[in-house]
């Protein structure tokens, strides 16, 4: 602006001011009015919305979705457009440019024009900037990982999604129909998606699949069920109950007393399907276990094609055409069969009839019937007679599809016998013949947990097991067994092993972890610890066995205390000697060392008591409270025990009768002193001390 322009402006401004209104009270009234309204809004916000206070900050909480405050959201959102190395543009370059633009504005826009229409560039940039900021803020709010609220309600699945998937996939994933999501998640894809097998359990993957296929199911759940049910409860519930609860409303017995709305009317068919898909993830294996295994057993066999199987499942009990036995059998036979069906033990004679007429279709399994009359009627009339549910009415299409797929896949699995051999050859060395586990040869001190418990198998599905076998578990020292990872087994063989493992689930050979020494913390004596833990390999008197013998003088003198300590503490690699340091306290190991020293068979024949192994514990328990800190005789270490005492040594090695210690213990001291004052030691303890002194009071 030139100086004339400046003068001109001041003059014009002066004119306008003269024509204006006084600051007080006209302008101030306007200002106060606006401020007052602002104040009312603030008070209303404070009253109605309050100021939230969430849980106390927990830096270790990995589930919390961090978000900046709303006025930084646009910046936050901006980052999404500048991935990787470009981030610096979004974070630094653009904001700095904006600030510099603002600061320099009076010098970049030097015209004397003031009306916005006269300054299209500045006006344009400002409006564009504002619109962009508003747009980004709105976008950030909309894209807020949905479960910010859901997570707060304890929706673990949504949290799982946010934690693991949202980072790359954003709030939703579009899944092409027919995608085997479970496989995609567990194995990853070629597009850089990692395999989640090691990070997520099979159950978690199931839950995620349900969530992805039915994202609305999550919302429906939150809206309709979450008030009364936790997600876990409903996921564990069986599909029939879920469907009945949906369809029957308060007619569903558990809901009889609940004031619940009519879900069937309120939720659209699509929403119902979403909800069911969400709750019972379309995972064939789970569905089979939950719904079919009760009648069909765990082994899956199928004949016919996919369409037939689907048809059969959808129609349920309607699929079988049982002949009407009313025409072929006499009434008494029918009656007998019916009685047998109702209670096999009550009428064993029916077995023959059943074998003759029924087992060609029913095999060994005896159908059930509600009452005798019902059974009679069913047998006489034939037709659809069994209670195979009409799954078409219970399961969603996705679930039936998954079930069919699973049946074919499972029926295809190789036989178990081959699996047993393969397991014995490849796995039993570490996992034990029955999968019971044991010391880990690859990692000293580690114990391999059993893999044949129902619990272990229930929580890992076939996919997971296959992955473990083929990829190994490098962290735990298990090498990969799959040939694609350099191992000896091809996919078919791995499938065989997995099927073999799976068979254990129903009938686990191992129920509890193996005798992992019930940590004998409470046991204080070296002898007890030795007998519990060491004796089974090293012999109860150190005579050896699987493990080294300790009894011989040669061994005893070849190994220092610290060497023995280390051996116990660290174990020996590639033997069954594990690192006990992880189980025992160092104090216990010290006691063990002391005890092992007493096992020296070539010393005094009976294994005379030693100071460290036998006497010191007695001293510490009964004497040290006074004779350790209060002067007089000190019994807390070998030197002092032998050398200190009032008026001469308390212990005369080899001469228990004249040792002051023994005299005070047994009450023969001429001064009449009896120790300990609280009461005499047990006879065995006294005898140990007497024996020890008699043996020359050896330190070890």
């Amino acid at each position, binding site marked *: 602006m030139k100086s004339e322009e400046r003068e001109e402006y001041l003059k014009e401004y002066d004119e306008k001011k003269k024509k204006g209104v006084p600051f007080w009270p006209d302008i101030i009234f306007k200002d106060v009015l*606006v401020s007052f309204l602002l104040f009312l809004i603030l008070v209303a916000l404070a009253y109605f919305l309050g100021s939230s206070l969430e849980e106390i900050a927990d830096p270790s909480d990995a589930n919390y979705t961090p978000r900046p405050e709303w006025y930084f959201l646009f910046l936050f959102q901006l980052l999404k457009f500048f991935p990787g190395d470009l981030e610096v543009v979004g974070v630094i370059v653009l904001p700095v440019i904006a600030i510099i633009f603002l600061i320099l504005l009076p010098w970049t826009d030097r015209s004397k024009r003031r009306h916005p229409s006269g300054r299209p560039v500045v006006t344009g940039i400002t409006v564009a900037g504002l619109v962009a900021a508003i747009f980004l803020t709105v976008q950030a709010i909309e894209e807020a990982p949905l479960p910010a609220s859901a997570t707060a309600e304890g929706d673990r699945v949504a949290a799982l999604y946010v934690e693991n998937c949202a980072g790359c996939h954003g709030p939703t994933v579009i899944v092409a129909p027919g995608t085997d999501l479970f496989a995609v998640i567990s194995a990853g894809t070629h597009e850089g998606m990692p395999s989640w097998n090691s990070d997520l359990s099979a159950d978690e993957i199931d839950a995620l699949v349900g969530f992805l296929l039915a994202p609305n199911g999550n919302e429906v759940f939150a809206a309709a069920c979450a008030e009364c049910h936790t997600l876990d409860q409903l996921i564990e519930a069986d599909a029939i109950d879920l469907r009945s609860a949906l369809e029957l409303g308060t007619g569903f017995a558990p809901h009889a007393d609940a004031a619940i709305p009519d879900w069937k009317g309120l939720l659209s068919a699509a929403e119902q399907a979403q909800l069911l898909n969400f709750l019972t993830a379309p995972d064939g294996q789970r569905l089979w276990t939950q719904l079919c295994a009760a009648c069909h057993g765990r082994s899956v066999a199928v004949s016919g094609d996919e369409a037939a199987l689907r048809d059969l499942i959808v129609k349920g009990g309607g699929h079988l055409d049982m002949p009407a036995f009313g025409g072929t059998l006499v009434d008494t036979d029918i009656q007998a069969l019916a009685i047998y069906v109702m209670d096999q033990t009550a009428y064993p004679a029916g077995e023959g009839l059943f074998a003759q007429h029924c087992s060609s279709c029913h095999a060994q399994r005896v159908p059930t019937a509600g009452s005798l009359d019902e059974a009679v009627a069913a047998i006489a009339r034939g037709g659809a007679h069994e209670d195979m549910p009409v799954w078409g009415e219970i399961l969603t299409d996705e679930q039936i599809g998954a079930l069919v797929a699973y049946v074919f896949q499972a029926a295809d699995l190789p036989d178990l016998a081959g699996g047993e051999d393969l397991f014995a050859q490849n796995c039993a060395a570490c996992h034990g013949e029955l999968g019971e586990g044991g010391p880990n040869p690859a990692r000293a001190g580690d114990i391999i947990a059993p893999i044949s418990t129902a619990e272990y198998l229930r929580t890992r599905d076939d996919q997971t097991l296959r992955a473990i076998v083929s990829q190994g578990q490098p962290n735990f020292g298990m090498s990969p067994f799959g040939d694609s990872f350099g191992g000896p087994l091809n996919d078919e063989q791995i499938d065989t092993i997995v099927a073999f493992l799976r068979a254990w689930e129903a009938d686990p050979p191992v129920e509890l972890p193996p005798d992992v020494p019930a940590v004998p913390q409470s046991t204080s004596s070296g002898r007890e610890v030795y007998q519990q833990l060491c004796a089974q390999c090293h012999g109860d008197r150190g005579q050896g066995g699987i493990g080294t013998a300790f009894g011989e003088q040669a061994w005893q003198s070849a190994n220092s205390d610290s060497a023995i300590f280390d051996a116990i503490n660290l174990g020996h690699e590639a033997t069954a000697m594990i690192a006990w340091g992880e189980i025992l306290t160092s104090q216990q190991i010290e006691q063990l060392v002391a005890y092992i020293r007493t096992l020296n068979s070539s010393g005094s024949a009976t294994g005379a008591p030693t100071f460290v192994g036998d006497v010191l514990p007695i001293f510490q328990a009964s004497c040290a409270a006074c004779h350790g800190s209060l002067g007089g005789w000190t019994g807390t270490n070998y030197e002092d025990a032998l050398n200190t005492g009032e008026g001469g040594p308390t212990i005369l090695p080899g001469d228990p009768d004249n040792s002051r210690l023994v005299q005070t213990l047994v009450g023969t001291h001429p001064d009449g002193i009896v120790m300990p004052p609280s009461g005499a030691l047990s006879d065995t303890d006294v005898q140990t001390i007497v024996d020890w002194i008699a043996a020359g009071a050896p330190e070890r």
Partner: protein
Amino acid sequence: MATRFGDWLNERSGWRAAYTMVFLRKIPKINWAYTLGSATLFAMIIQIVTGILLTLYYVPDPQLAYASVGYITNELPFGWLIRGLHHWGASAMVLLVVLHMVRVIIYGAYKYPREFTWITGVALLLLTFSFGFTGYLLPWDQRAYWATVVGTQIGEVTPVVGDTLRAVMLGGEEISGLTLSRFYGAHVWVLPSVLLLLVGIHIYLVIRNGITSVPKRGE
């Protein structure tokens, strides 16, 4: 009596001249958009008053901050009001500062003779954001903590000095009690002193140079 006291005081302070200059000056015809500045000032006063009241109970210590905020919000009489006003007032401040600035840009009010007023205004905008950022951590709840995690990580991207900058800002590698106390120090002492200084200059300049008139088309 009042007049005599006024005269007495005037002789010693000259308040009448100041009063005349501030309150009796004339203002060109303006519209409602011009109340944004005073509304911002009002929001600031609310923040100062409620902020001072909050410091009576708040303790910037990771063990106690959360408990003290909870105490203020849930147990003290009208604590919800004081904290609520401060909480929402913070958002109002940001909103108003931005709107005020947009008004100034649209009406070309940053031009001669108000360039310096404008510069102090830009500084006040940044200051307002700093207030928001430092204040957000103080309740030490999940939202506060994680928002600060994100906020400071964003800053870490700065080339060369990013890591150092973040470490200095946080008082270490991670958010800790040190972060809390320095955010508190900044929020309660450093930023307010700068704010008052700048607001003082800003208002002085507004009074001295007057408020712009609404520009007419073609002006």
